[in-house]
C-alpha cells in the first residue's frame, strides 16, 4: 500500500492540479486524502480511532499537503471547524472515528446547522458486513445526524469516494451553507478502487437548486416598497457575511440613506463607525435598535431569519411595518414574520439588482429619532458600564478597553452567556467577519476550540477568545491543542464565579433563588501552565490596561483571567416572550 503512495507522490509533485488522473488503483483511504487535496482542503481537525485508522494511515503520507490538527475531544474538532469556516467562508473539515467519536461531534454539527456554517465531517464506521450487528463502536451515525445535517451519506465502497466527497463539499458550501456528514465504512477505506481515481469538483446536484439570482419581479416589488417608505429600517443578518456582500451592503445603505441594525451574527457586516449604523438587535441589543423595529414603516431583513431572540414576542413585532425579506432559503420566508415582499436569492446578487432600482435618499431625520434612545441608553447603561465606580472590574469595561487597544480590528470569538452579550455590545467591530460566536444553538464551550480554528483559518488576524468561567470548563482540554500546535490565540476568561446569565435570570425572574449557578473554580492560570500556556490574573482596575497589553503583546498563546464583578447584569434586556417595546434598561 505504501509503495503506491510513494509512487503516487513522486508522480504528482503538484497534487492540487484539478481532475488529476491517478493510474494506480488507490485504496478508499488514499482516495479520500487525494480528494481532500484536490478539493483545496488545507486543514483537518480530527481525532483517530479504530474505525478510521486506514484513513489515518493514508494521512501519514499526506502530512505535507494536509495540515491535521489533533484535538483533545471531538466536540473541539467540530467547533474548531466552525471557527475556521466562519473566518474563511470555506467548509471546516473534521475527521473522527465511529461510535463515540461521531456522537461527540453532534453538538458541533447541530451548532453549525443552526448558524448556517459549512462543515464536512468525515466519520469512520464499522465494515459494511458488521452494520446492524452492534459491533464495537458501531452507532447509527446517519440516523443520529439526520435532523442536524444539511445532508448525510454512508459510503460503503471505495469507488464512491471521489464523487461523494465532491458532492459533500458542494452541498456544505453552496446555497445556505450547513454541515454534511459522510459515514465511511471501514471496508470502503481499506479496499482498492476498481477504477482509476478521478476527481471533479461538484457544481450541480439535480434535485438541489438554490436560487442565487432573484426573480426580477420580486426585486422590483421590494424596490417599490423601499422607495415609498418614509421610515425604512434595515436589519442585517449573518447572510450578508456568508454571501461576502459587505461592500454591496455599504453601497446600498449609503445610496438609500436607511438606518441599519445587525443581528448578533450580523455583527461586523457594517462598521460600527458608520453614521447609519444604529446598533444591534435582540434580547440584549441596543435600546433604540430594538424599539425602532416597532416604529418603522418598512423593515428590510437582509440575510436573517427573525430569530425569537431578535423578535421577542413575534405577535407584537413590527406589526405596523411592511416587510421586505431578502433570503436565500425559501423556507425562512413567512416562517416567523410575514413578508410583504420576499426576495429569494443570494444577498450579494439581490443587492446588486436592487441598487439601480432604489432612489438616492436621505433619512437623516428618521435616523435621528434613534438618537434619543441612544442618549438614554448611554446615560443609564453604557457610561456606568464602561467607566464604573465599583470596586471590581466590570465585563463591559474590559471589553471596551480591549476594543480600543485593538482598534476594533480583532476577530472576537465569544462563548455563550453574559460575556458573549458584552462582547457583542461593547466591542466596536470595524472589519467584517470579526465576531465568531454560537448564535442559534448557544453552545457553551464553543469559543476555545472555535478560536484556534479561526486562528488556523486566518493567521494574519489577532484572534481573541472571550470566555466565561463556566464555559471555559466545558472544553478547556483544548488548551492542549493550542499548545501543541503553537497557535497564538489570546484567551480572556471573564471570571465572576457564576454561571452569570442563568444567575441574572434567576435574579430577575426567579426571585433571586440562585439554584446551582455558583462555581468553585480551579486556578485557571495553574491549569494553563500545566498545558504550557502562560497567563496571569488581573483583579484590580489599575492593572487592567497593562494586563491587556501583556496579552496582546504575547507572541505565543496567552491566558488572561480577569476577575469581574460577581453580580453584574446585562442590559438592555427584552425579557423572553415580551415585546421589544418592553425592553428593560435596569
Amino acid at each position, binding site marked *: 500500500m505504501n509503495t503506491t503512495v510513494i509512487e503516487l507522490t513522486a508522480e504528482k509533485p503538484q497534487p492540487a492540479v484539478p481532475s488529476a488522473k491517478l493510474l494506480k488503483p488507490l485504496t478508499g483511504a488514499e482516495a479520500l486524502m487525494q480528494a481532500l487535496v484536490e478539493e483545496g482542503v488545507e486543514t483537518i481537525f480530527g481525532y483517530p480511532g479504530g474505525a478510521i485508522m486506514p484513513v489515518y494511515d493514508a494521512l501519514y503520507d499526506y502530512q505535507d499537503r494536509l495540515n491535521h490538527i489533533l484535538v483533545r475531544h471531538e466536540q473541539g474538532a467540530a467547533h474548531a471547524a466552525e471557527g475556521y469556516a466562519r473566518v474563511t467562508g470555506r467548509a471546516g473539515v473534521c475527521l473522527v472515528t465511529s461510535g463515540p467519536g461521531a456522537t461527540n461531534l453532534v453538538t458541533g454539527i447541530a451548532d453549525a446547522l443552526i448558524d448556517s456554517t459549512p462543515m464536512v465531517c468525515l466519520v469512520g464506521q464499522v465494515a459494511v458486513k458488521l452494520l446492524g450487528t452492534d459491533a464495537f463502536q458501531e452507532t447509527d451515525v*446517519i440516523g443520529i445526524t*439526520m435532523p442536524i445535517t444539511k445532508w448525510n451519506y454512508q459510503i460503503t465502497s471505495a469507488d464512491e469516494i471521489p464523487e461523494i466527497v465532491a458532492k459533500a463539499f458542494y452541498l456544505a458550501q453552496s446555497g445556505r451553507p450547513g454541515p454534511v456528514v459522510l459515514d465511511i465504512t471501514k471496508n470502503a477505506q481499506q479496499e482498492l478502487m476498481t477504477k482509476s481515481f478521478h476527481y471533479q469538483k461538484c457544481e450541480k446536484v439535480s434535485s438541489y437548486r438554490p436560487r442565487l439570482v432573484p426573480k426580477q419581479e420580486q426585486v422590483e416589488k421590494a424596490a417599490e416598497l423601499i422607495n415609498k417608505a418614509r421610515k425604512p429600517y434595515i436589519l442585517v443578518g449573518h447572510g450578508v457575511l456568508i454571501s461576502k456582500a459587505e461592500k454591496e451592503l455599504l453601497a446600498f445603505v449609503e445610496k438609500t440613506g436607511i438606518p441599519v441594525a445587525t443581528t448578533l451574527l450580523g455583527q461586523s457586516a457594517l462598521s460600527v463607525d458608520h453614521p447609519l449604523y444604529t446598533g444591534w438587535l435582540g434580547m440584549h441589543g441596543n435600546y433604540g435598535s430594538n424599539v425602532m423595529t416597532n416604529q418603522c414603516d418598512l423593515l428590510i431583513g437582509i440575510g436573517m431569519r427573525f430569530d425569537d431572540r431578535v423578535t421577542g414576542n413575534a405577535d407584537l413585532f413590527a406589526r405596523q411595518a411592511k416587510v421586505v425579506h431578502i433570503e436565500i432559503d425559501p*423556507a425562512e420566508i*413567512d416562517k416567523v414574520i410575514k413578508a410583504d415582499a420576499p426576495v429569494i436569492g443570494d444577498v450579494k446578487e439581490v443587492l446588486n439588482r436592487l441598487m439601480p432600482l432604489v432612489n438616492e435618499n436621505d433619512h437623516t431625520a428618521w435616523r435621528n429619532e434613534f438618537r434619543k434612545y441612544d442618549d438614554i441608553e448611554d446615560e443609564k447603561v453604557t457610561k456606568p458600564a464602561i467607566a464604573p465606580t465599583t470596586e471590581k472590574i466590570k465585563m463591559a469595561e474590559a471589553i471596551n478597553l480591549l476594543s480600543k487597544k485593538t482598534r476594533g480590528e480583532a476577530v472576537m470569538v465569544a462563548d455563550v452567556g453574559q460575556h458573549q452579550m458584552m462582547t457583542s455590545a461593547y466591542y466596536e467591530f470595524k472589519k467584517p467577519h470579526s465576531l465568531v460566536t454560537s448564535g442559534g444553538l448557544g453552545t457553551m464551550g464553543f469559543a476555545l476550540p472555535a478560536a484556534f480554528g479561526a486562528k488556523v483559518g486566518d493567521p494574519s488576524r489577532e484572534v481573541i477568545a472571550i470566555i466565561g468561567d463556566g464555559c471555559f470548563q466545558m472544553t478547556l482540554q483544548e488548551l492542549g491543542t493550542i499548545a501543541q500546535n503553537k497557535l497564538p490565540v489570546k484567551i480572556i476568561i471573564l471570571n465572576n464565579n457564576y454561571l452569570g446569565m442563568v444567575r441574572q435570570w434567576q435574579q430577575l425572574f426567579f426571585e433571586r433563588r440562585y439554584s446551582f449557578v455558583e462555581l468553585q473554580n480551579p486556578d485557571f492560570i495553574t491549569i494553563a501552565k500545566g498545558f504550557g500556556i502562560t497567563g496571569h490574573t488581573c483583579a484590580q482596575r489599575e492593572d487592567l490596561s497593562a494586563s491587556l497589553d501583556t496579552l496582546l503583546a504575547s507572541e505565543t498563546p496567552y491566558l488572561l483571567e480577569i476577575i469581574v464583578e460577581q453580580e453584574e447584569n446585562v442590559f438592555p434586556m427584552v425579557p423572553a416572550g415580551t415585546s421589544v417595546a418592553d425592553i428593560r434598561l435596569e
Partner: protein
Amino acid sequence: MNTYTICIFTENTIGLLNRITIIFTRRRINIESLTVSETERMGVSRFTIVIKHDSREAVEKLVRQIRKIIEVMAVFGYLNDEIVSNEIALFKIATPLGSKPLDIEYINKNFNAWVVYWQLDYVVIEKTGSEKQIFEFFSYIKPHGILEFVRSGRVAVGKTEKGLVEYLPEYEWEYYL
C-alpha cells in the same frame, strides 16, 4: 381540521423516508397515512402523505421544510378537492358453517367490492374507494365477523393538467399551496 395530501417526489435513496418523517415529528404532526412507490420515471420515488391540520399556514411551512431536503425534487400540498385519490382495503371475513351467508352479488353491485380469495371458512374481500366508502362497507360487513382488516393509505394524483415530466428534470422551485 382539514385533510391535506402531500405528494413528494424524491430520488430513490436509503434513509429518505426517515429524513422526511422527522420533519413531521419535530412539529408534532401526526401522519394519517403514507405510501411510497417508484414513479413512471426511473429512480424517482413518490411519497403520498396524508395529514390533518387546522392551519394551512403550518402546512405550507411544512412543505417548504420538506423541499429543503437535498434529494427532494418537488413537493405538492393538496386539499381534497384538488386531487383524485383512492385507497384499497382488504377484509378477511369468517364464513364458518351455519353463519349468516354473504350476499356476494349485493356486495358487488352496491359496494363495488370483490372476493379475491376464499377458503373453507373465510373469504378475502377487496374494496377500493375513498376512506368514507371503505368505512361504509366496513359497517355493512362488520356483523359477519371481521378476522382482519387492512387499508393501504391514500394514493393520489393532482387535478392539474401538468404531469410530473413538466416539473422534472428542471426541478424548479415549484410547489403548490
